[in-house]
């Protein structure tokens, strides 16, 4: 019916306009980064600012990946992030399930404890944790950077997944329970498939977090060949000077893998409900 169609076109156009305007502001700093990454030294400091670099110095990117052992660091960072995500997506959903779909005494206390540990800034727990790992002989390895994930030690993610779990209808498991299925079976076959967007989100966030983590590698790694990208980026800032153009180039390259990953993850979110309630 033509009436509904025009309504849809109007609402879609409005949405596009708003998104474009907002999106422009959101991307603005990113454009500036891109522009700076291609500038020559002379254009970095001019006033008023130059938006489009002229000449365009692509060699800043070459410099960015050769000044520091960029690809070695990228590999290291990827390893740590992968392990972190692995541990998280295995352990956290289990814990979140236990905190939401099973009625047991002590559940709420544990949940509240989970939230409570997030309230202490890590600046004061990091030194005792470091001493612990040091006594265990794990300083200098990657283990301290991801081992907590395998214990579900990511309270932010537990909390998030728990919220996804409780958003599901209460009686979902009842039929399966009556049939006598094991709780784990129910977890795996009934509930888990329904929170795939949640798990993808958690995986993405942990990847991002681990990828950009600075404090962890700062403390635990002291062999230059094992450093991660976040430390590598610091190397562009010496005591008094900063290689601005190369730093921006390197920063963009560091962000790229996560941007690509995110693009593919959000595709899974494609089942959107349009504003007018009609699936498009």
């Amino acid at each position, binding site marked *: 019916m033509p009436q509904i169609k025009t309504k849809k076109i109007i609402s*879609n156009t409005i*949405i596009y306009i708003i*998104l474009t305007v*907002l*999106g422009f502001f*959101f*991307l603005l*700093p990113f454009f*500036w*980064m891109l522009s700076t990454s291609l500038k020559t030294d002379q254009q970095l400091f001019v006033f*008023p600012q130059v938006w489009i670099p002229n000449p365009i110095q692509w060699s800043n990117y070459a410099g960015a990946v050769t000044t520091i052992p960029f690809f070695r660091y990228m590999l290291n960072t990827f390893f740590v992030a992968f392990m972190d995500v692995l541990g998280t997506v295995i352990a956290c959903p*289990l*814990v979140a399930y*236990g905190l939401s779909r*099973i*009625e*047991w*005494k002590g559940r709420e206390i544990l949940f509240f*404890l*989970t*939230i*409570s*540990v*997030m*309230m*202490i*800034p890590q600046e*004061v727990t990091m030194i005792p944790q470091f001493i612990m790992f040091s006594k265990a002989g794990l300083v200098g390895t990657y283990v301290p950077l991801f081992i*907590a994930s395998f214990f*579900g*030690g990511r309270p932010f993610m537990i909390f*998030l997944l728990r*919220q*996804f779990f409780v*958003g*599901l209808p*209460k009686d979902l498991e009842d039929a399966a329970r009556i049939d006598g299925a094991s*709780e784990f079976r129910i977890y795996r076959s009934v509930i888990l498939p*329904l929170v795939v*967007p*949640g798990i*993808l989100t958690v995986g*993405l*966030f942990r990847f*991002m977090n681990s990828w950009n983590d600075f404090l962890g590698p700062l403390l635990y790694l002291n062999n230059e060949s094992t450093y991660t990208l976040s430390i590598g*980026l610091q190397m562009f800032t010496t005591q008094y000077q900063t290689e*601005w153009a190369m730093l921006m180039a390197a*920063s963009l390259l*560091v962000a790229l893998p996560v*941007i690509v990953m*995110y693009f593919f993850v959000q595709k899974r*979110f*494609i089942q*959107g*409900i*349009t*504003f007018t*309630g009609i*699936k*498009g």
Partner: protein
Amino acid sequence: MKLNMEKLKIRKGIEAHNFKLGILFTLPWILGLVIFYVYPLISSIYYSFTSYSILNSGHFVGLQNYKDLFHDALFLKSVKNTLYFTALSVPINIILGIIIALLLNNALKFIGFFRTVFFIPTLVPVVATATVWKWILNSNYGLMNSILSKFGISPIPWLASTKWSKISLVMIAAWGIGQAIVVNLGGLQDISSEYYEAADIDGANVFQKTFKITIPLLSPVIFYNVIMGMIGAFQYFTLPYTLTGGEGTPNNSLTFYVMYLYNNAFGYLKMGYASAMAWILFVIILVLTVVIFKTSKKWVHYQ
């Protein structure tokens, strides 16, 4: 009589069974808590009663650190700064996050591109973010003031005045709500289209559908964003630290709680003092969280 006893036994049996299951599923985290948190947390409480400096175990000072804090003008200022920032930033980010997520939750062409656009800011390394925003908000020739001047507004000293500096940071923080948007998007996925179809049959309009279906069903996720947003705002540190080199300029208007904590811990070698700060912060956040939890029963809908 016998029937009631039977019922009780069965119920106790189920409770015990569920308890075992509950512990089993959450076992990794229970172990994690014990291994990774018990010792550090107890250590840091102990340190708060000493003159611990990391380099040296110091000596016991009892409640002196806590007493000194309440006479520390900069500490009190950092509390004010942080409260101000949190009060502004959290509501703005929640609302903005929902609006943008709703817009992005449409299966329109290029929506994937737009979804990525709003997420990109969170991926930019902090040092780059700080530099970019310093330039954009520069009072003399920043982009922001150039745009405003086209509308006839005289230049605002964004990062140079104590009045505007925190507002500038609220703006920068809003720019970084990509994560909250993604979380909202994820939550929106789980809302079954059946509800909307039923509402359409009843002839509901967009606003009614948003406020009667979407928001209530999204509320568990919104609740998450509120708690996380609040904790994040209270612990806000990395960006202002990078922006001001840890100095909170102008005039300590950007000295946030955790920034002052960090400076004490690693700059002035007063980790004991910093630990006391950490636990005071813990109490503040705890109280607020309990309040939010209690009120959540009213507006968070679990199915």
